[in-house]
């Protein structure tokens, strides 16, 4: 067990270094001189030279790369040119709204998708199953930004039930937070519930192939008990990894929705940084988001190892 965890941990570190490497090169494929791009057309030669000095662009590429990696390791994500201060604290300050949104959407999606899928698995040809299957096919095809606008039009503008945009901290103002978060969370859930339900269904059907179910039925268990007690726990394990893997899509969705609902999270920060060409922020947000994704999937893998006896014992 321990060697397995250590091996995963090593892979985790390798992927994180590769992620940072990828970003290092992406930022450096900018055509021309990044110092000129950042400083803008109005800058004097002296300003550009000063900027080049602070960005460390004078050094050879390999040295820049090592300095970049070393900086990341000690939490130095460079200096934001718009805020004129270290990038990391700015990014971390924008993290909570994004996390709140992502976590709420994930938890609620699982809470909806699991009972829904079990109900459809009981009667695969039934009306509910057919409706859910059709809805899922459409739900994974709906662009988040579009349905966000449509729901805003309906719930916020026409019915005036919910605010059009804004954010409240759920810990200091829980009621306000629910009102502000309702629309973005619903939008995120449309896609998530469909993805979870499709995967869980496939996993349930795959589990149905096993012969131990014949024993369960032979000893007189009702179909519902067979499903809930035997099939779902086994099918849930592989489906659990989907929750982790889908986190990438989810975070991407959050990033886009934040700009629509004016939520002060990583997505809004990223969008703003793109507008002002603040490369330290763009670079930092990208790394943080990718690192979160890798880390959470590492934790899901660990949980999976503890939950699955086959892996635990070996």
């Amino acid at each position: 067990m321990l060697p397995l965890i250590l091996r995963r941990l090593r892979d985790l570190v390798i992927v994180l270094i590769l992620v940072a490497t990828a970003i290092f090169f992406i930022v450096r494929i900018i055509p021309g001189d990044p110092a000129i791009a950042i400083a803008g057309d109005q800058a004097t030669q002296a300003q550009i030279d000063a900027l080049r000095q602070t960005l460390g662009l004078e050094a050879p590429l390999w040295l820049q790369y090592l300095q970049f990696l070393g900086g990341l390791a000690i939490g130095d994500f460079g200096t934001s040119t718009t805020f004129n201060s270290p990038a990391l604290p700015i990014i971390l300050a924008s993290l909570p709204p994004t996390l709140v949104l992502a976590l709420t959407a994930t938890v609620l999606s699982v809470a909806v998708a699991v009972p829904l899928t079990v109900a459809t698995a009981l009667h695969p040809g039934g009306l509910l199953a057919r409706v859910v299957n059709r809805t899922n096919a459409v739900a994974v095809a709906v662009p988040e930004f579009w349905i966000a606008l449509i729901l805003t039009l309906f719930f916020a503008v026409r019915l005036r039930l919910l605010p059009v945009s804004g954010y409240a901290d759920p810990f200091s103002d829980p009621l306000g937070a629910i009102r502000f978060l309702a629309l973005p969370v619903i939008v995120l859930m449309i896609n998530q519930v469909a993805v979870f339900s499709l995967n869980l269904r496939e996993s349930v059907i795959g589990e149905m192939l096993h012969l131990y179910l014949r024993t369960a039925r032979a000893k007189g268990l009702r179909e519902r008990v067979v499903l809930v007690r035997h099939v779902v726990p086994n099918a849930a394990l592989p489906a659990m990894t989907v929750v982790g893997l889908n986190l990438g899509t989810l975070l991407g969705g959050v990033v886009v929705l934040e700009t629509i609902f004016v939520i002060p999270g990583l997505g809004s920060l990223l969008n703003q940084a793109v507008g002002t060409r603040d490369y330290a922020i763009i670079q930092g947000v990208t790394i943080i988001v990718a690192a979160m994704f890798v880390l959470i999937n590492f934790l899901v893998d660990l949980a999976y190892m503890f939950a699955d006896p086959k892996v635990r014992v070996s």
Partner: protein
Amino acid sequence: MMDRIRSFARAHRELVVWMTVLVVILLVCVLGPAFSADAFAQDPLRRLLPPGPGGVLGTDAFGRDILARVLAAGRVSLSIAAIIALAASVVGSAIGMVSGYASAAGAVLMRAMDALMAFPGIVLSIALVTAIGPGEVSEVIALTVVFTPLIARVVRSRVLSLATRGYITAARSAGMAGWKILLVHILPNALPIILVQAVLVFAAALLLDGTLSFLGMGVQPPTPTWGNMIAEARPYLVIAPTFVIAPGVAIILAVVTLNALGNGIRDVVDPRARTLSNLIRVQRRHDTTMRGSRRSLATKGSLSRG
């Protein structure tokens, strides 16, 4: 030959239906602009008209016909997504085949793919597009980078399983060159699965193109895409809802069709998916009589084990 096609069509009716829908969508977007109003003709006197005699879907903020623009945008969005799907399939297949067949280079390549997959697609493409500068070329490059790892991973696992087959060993012991084995023996066997992935990536690229264009980082107006149309329509959400609704419905229709087509092809070419979908069909058929479904499931189970 005709008989075989006919019996195939009869056995996979849904696949034929979705294929037809896709062809209709493509034809409408390619030929439609020739018959509809001019997608670029502005008319300040006919701004934001509701659907009616002035235009089936009304007009936009510059008095341009929305239906004409949705069709013109479809041309742009669909061709960009198709180019991305093609590019990602070619590059991804090449990487997947090399990394599945040559183990040393393979490990390095797949690690790089893992790293790229750690980024949410939209975040990676935003970073890439800002680095290269907005526009259709950088969008194609960015989304190709985003989708290549997905295809590479699937192709690699297919190649890994193919590489252990007897005829590959035979070819290798007969002295066939590695690249020749890959092209002659492995690629043809991996093609069906590449096709499935290409169609699914087509759908995903359409969605991501929509998002990027919506954020103003894809194709720049006045060239319409479904995404930048929605962005243009956003300020007029309340007074001209069809302006927002039309391009969104177009995206959904195209993506649903492509996903259904991709999954349909997968049901035909991938044995595991076929078992699952057959199982669903068997279950449905016997759903009214639960006894029957149990018996058939049990037989299936024992067969697949044998």
